[in-house]
């Protein structure tokens, strides 16, 4: 049950990141260029994983995943999903840029999530590292 719950939250969180990153303009989290495709993917991920969770087993039973454990599993799953989402998006966008399409580039505006408006997570980390080492971009 704990593993199922972790998978439920992990995949649903990726769906939420895909949907919510569109209005926020956090392009560093995008898997797709077309917003419609990204919305569709996000909704499909959420509905799909909830469908799997509730049809694979009877869930209204006395279980062992109590409140505190649910909280830690949830926090772990959303943070893990965030970094997996950001790394996947970095890899996808790097692959796209190699094919000659317009890559996501720009100056690191601010530390944190705001950086993902202009670059991917891996680009952001590399940029911070270069600045720390005094290497020009």
């Amino acid at each position, binding site marked *: 049950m704990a593993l199922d*719950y972790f998978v*439920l*939250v992990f995949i*649903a*969180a990726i769906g*939420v*990141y895909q*949907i*919510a*990153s569109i*209005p*926020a*303009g*956090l392009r560093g*989290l995008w898997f797709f260029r077309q917003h419609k495709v990204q919305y569709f993917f996000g909704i499909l991920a*959420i509905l799909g994983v*909830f469908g799997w*969770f*509730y049809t694979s087993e009877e*869930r*209204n*039973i*006395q*279980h062992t*995943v109590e*409140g505190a454990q*649910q909280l830690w599993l*949830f926090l772990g799953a*959303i*943070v893990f999903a*965030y970094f997996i989402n*950001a790394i996947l998006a970095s890899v996808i966008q790097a692959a796209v840029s190699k094919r000659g399409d317009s890559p996501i580039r720009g100056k690191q505006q*601010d*530390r*944190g*999530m*705001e*950086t*993902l408006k202009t670059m991917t*997570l891996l680009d*952001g*980390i590399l940029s911070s590292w270069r600045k720390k080492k005094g290497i020009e971009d």
Partner: protein
Amino acid sequence: MPPLSGWTLWITGFVGKAPALDHVMGFLANDFFVPVAIALIMLGLWIGHPDLTRRGQLQKAIMNASVAIGISTLVVRTLNVFDFWPRPFLVDDIVIRESATYAAQTVFYLPHDPSFPSNAATISFAAATGIWFSHRTAGAVLYFIAFLWVFARFYAGIHFAVDLAGGVMIGIVTSTMISKVFMPRTEPVPTWALKLGRFLYLA
């Protein structure tokens, strides 16, 4: 026996008459569906605003709501020590007990933890109240979802109305105190937490 226990007898009388409704209520009463839905909406709010300043305000509201959920859960745990009354399917009144037992077995399951106050009502209304102070629309949606969860648990015969009302009150009052009194006085700690989140690309 708590006050208004007759309401439990009335609501559980509907169970078994419409299997489709029982199925929907079972889904809503589930331990995972509504809390995950509420948390995912909060997650969407965490990253979903384009403006950096407004996003920061929403992230602080989500931190307030999260702290309120934790503190209100502690309040519930403390009150659980007193063991006010048993679950509806464990009371001495045989009519209420049998009706609630049938409802709980049909819609949900027979939980063993104390009846008063409802933990589900407490955490869901604490979350909704914390968000309401910063985002009215999202707060209203969360209140609606929280109400559905609470109602489904009443329908399932696992709580008396007083358990749910008590949970709702604890959730709202705790969240208001945390959002309006406690967290503003702990500044700059929430701001430091947000800065740490930014350093880790999480906020």
